[in-house]
């Protein structure tokens, strides 16, 4: 795997508690990487260590296989969880200031900003003061200042908090667009729906440790445990008899339109799937069969409770 960022055995303790405990992860180049975990799990600490705001007690962070240099850190686009803008400054001037700190020229910065502002439909905020903006509005501005210099690595801490669903969707589209243009995006979140929609890879951090890491598809399939939903025309007893030895129906069946019934079944062995389909087709008027992926929400809760696998 070609990883742009490699976090190796990071440990960080504060006086009262251990924030990160021997945590490692690999971020594949060009992916959208989700960092999940309950409150206080250590997500923000990890992001701050990657940005060298906080120094780890031990372990290291490699960018393209080499330790991070100062100028590389200064090139990362980082949006902290607590939004930080000068309240008394006008939006446009402020955005230009941040862009120039990231090394853009004044005119280039203004040109790119106007382009971004018009795409996100906030061009009329240019001369307003930040203190007059709502939280969500300020966040849009902050997002733009974070990505404006087109860094190859983008880090967002809780990017969706404070956004309404419409703007959250807008943000998701922009994140995917940035990925398509070659950026690698790391973000932390509680918002599981956003993970399913846009993440390629995730790491689940709980109690300072990496408890689950991998591509979203793999994780859902593994955690899914071969659950399928079938629609058919037969009673529960007929179904059980048909599948005996190959699969077991789970829970209640529910009637759906057209006289069909939907039932979840568990097929323990992958190689039995064809046989199951054949039997169902012959005896139960099978109409459809679909693999049931568990939601990331389920996986999150099960992983944190230790009931996964």
């Amino acid at each position, binding site marked *: 795997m070609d990883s742009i960022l490699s976090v190796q055995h990071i440990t960080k303790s504060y006086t009262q508690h251990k924030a990160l405990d021997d945590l490692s992860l690999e971020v594949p180049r060009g992916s959208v990487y989700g960092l999940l975990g309950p409150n206080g799990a250590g997500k923000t600490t990890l992001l701050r260590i990657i940005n060298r705001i906080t120094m780890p007690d031990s372990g290291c962070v490699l960018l393209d296989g080499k330790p991070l240099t100062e100028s590389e850190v200064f090139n990362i686009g980082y949006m902290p969880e607590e939004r*930080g803008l000068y309240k008394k400054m006008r939006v446009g001037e402020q955005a230009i200031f941040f862009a120039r*700190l990231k090394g853009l020229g004044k005119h280039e910065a203004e040109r790119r900003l106007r382009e971004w502002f018009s795409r996100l439909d906030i061009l009329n905020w240019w001369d307003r003061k930040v203190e007059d903006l709502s939280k969500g509005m300020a966040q849009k501005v902050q997002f733009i200042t974070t990505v404006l210099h087109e860094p190859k690595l983008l880090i967002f801490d809780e990017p969706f908090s404070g956004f309404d669903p419409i703007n959250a969707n807008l943000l998701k589209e922009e994140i995917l667009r940035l990925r398509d243009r070659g950026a690698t995006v790391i973000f932390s979140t509680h918002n599981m729906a956003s993970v399913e929609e846009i993440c390629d890879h995730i790491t689940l951090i709980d109690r300072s440790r990496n408890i689950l890491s991998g591509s979203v598809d793999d994780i859902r399939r593994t955690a899914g445990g071969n659950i399928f939903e079938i629609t058919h025309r037969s009673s529960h007893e007929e179904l059980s008899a048909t599948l005996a030895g190959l699969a077991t129906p789970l829970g209640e069946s529910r009637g759906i339109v057209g006289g069909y019934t939907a039932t979840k079944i568990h097929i323990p062995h992958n190689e039995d799937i064809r046989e199951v389909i054949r039997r169902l087709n012959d005896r139960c008027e099978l109409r459809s069969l679909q693999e049931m992926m568990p939601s990331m929400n389920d996986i999150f809760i099960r992983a944190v409770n230790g009931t996964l696998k």
Partner: protein
Amino acid sequence: MKKIYLIIAREFVERARKKSFILTTLLMPIFMIGMMVAPSLMMLYGGSEQKQVVVIDHSGIVSPRLQSSKEVLFTAENNMDKAEACKIYNAESGIFGILYIDERVGDSGNVEFIINSSSSLMLEELITSQIENIVEQEKLKERYNIDNLDQMLQDVATPITLSTFENNGTGNNEDMESTSAGINYILGIVLGMLLYMVIIIYGQMVLTSVVEEKASRVLDVIVTSCRPFEIMMGKILGIASVALTQIAIWAVLVIAASKFLIPALFTADVAATSDMMLQGVIGTLGDTAYIAQLFVYLVLFILGGFLLYASLYAASGSAVDSVQDGQQFNTIIMMPIIIAMIVMMSVFNDPNSPVAFWASMIPFTSPIVMIARIPFGIPTWEIVVSLVVLYLSFIFTTWLAAKIYRIGIFMHGKRPSWRELGSWLKVK
């Protein structure tokens, strides 16, 4: 290094275009002139109403010769007895007080002043000096029997004016500047106060603004673009440039006034006036080169003093989460500044006392004390040594402050203890 300029420029532009900055820059000279002029105006016009004093003179020599003036009106009631007068001229009568002089005043020198409200030093001095003169002359007349004494006394009376000059080694005083202690005193106070205010006001601006940046988490964003030291120095230098701009505007106003306004206002009148003090003031203020030189020193000391303290203010701001918490550090930083102010006041009695000398060398008090001493004429080497020490100390405090700052800006929560601050200094 380009980034530090961006930070300086932002600090400067954001502050210098505020209405409050423009207003204080323009109003401050008016306020300062007001402070200088107010005491004399109050003496001239603000004097309280004439006070009525009833005089019971049993000696018979004083009351006929007491001179009433703008301040006090004497009324003789020589036949009244003291107890009776006290009864009649009580608080409701509108009489200020009763002056009781007995027969033996020439021997005892005792005079009683029975008053209905509170007296003032000035009034008491006025009365005693008059009575002293009267009794003295009366005794001369009585005991030595000299004719035409009044005329003789008037003839020999000579008011003395003390003109002070700086020794230039030639003894030729003709074209030497007169250095009146009075004008030095005023200049010293104005310059010292100015420095004090700049350090306090702009220093606290540094503290407040660091706290705001930290609390609003803007710092979290900026540190991903540049080093904490650049951010801290950018802020300090940005605010310093605002302060210097303000002083430059004042300098231009004052120098312009010295060059054009003062010569235009006082040409013939000055020669005519016998008031040496006024001549000294106008002479000094009209000396454009001298005023310009003072401003150069002022800028050097303000910059040095501000930078010395600003880094401490920045470190304090970085260690706390709110301006209220910062007040506790602020109080400690203020202490040497206030000591400097106290020493400055003693400078005016003796500008070359050991206390004045050392206080103008020790960096924490030196800017304020030294700038107050400069108008009195201080050897240049003292000024140079003081400046060198000041700027070296600024490098030291900045180095110290930077160590606290780069850790403090990421610490949120309770105010750190001194022990914790000490441990931050040790972090590599």
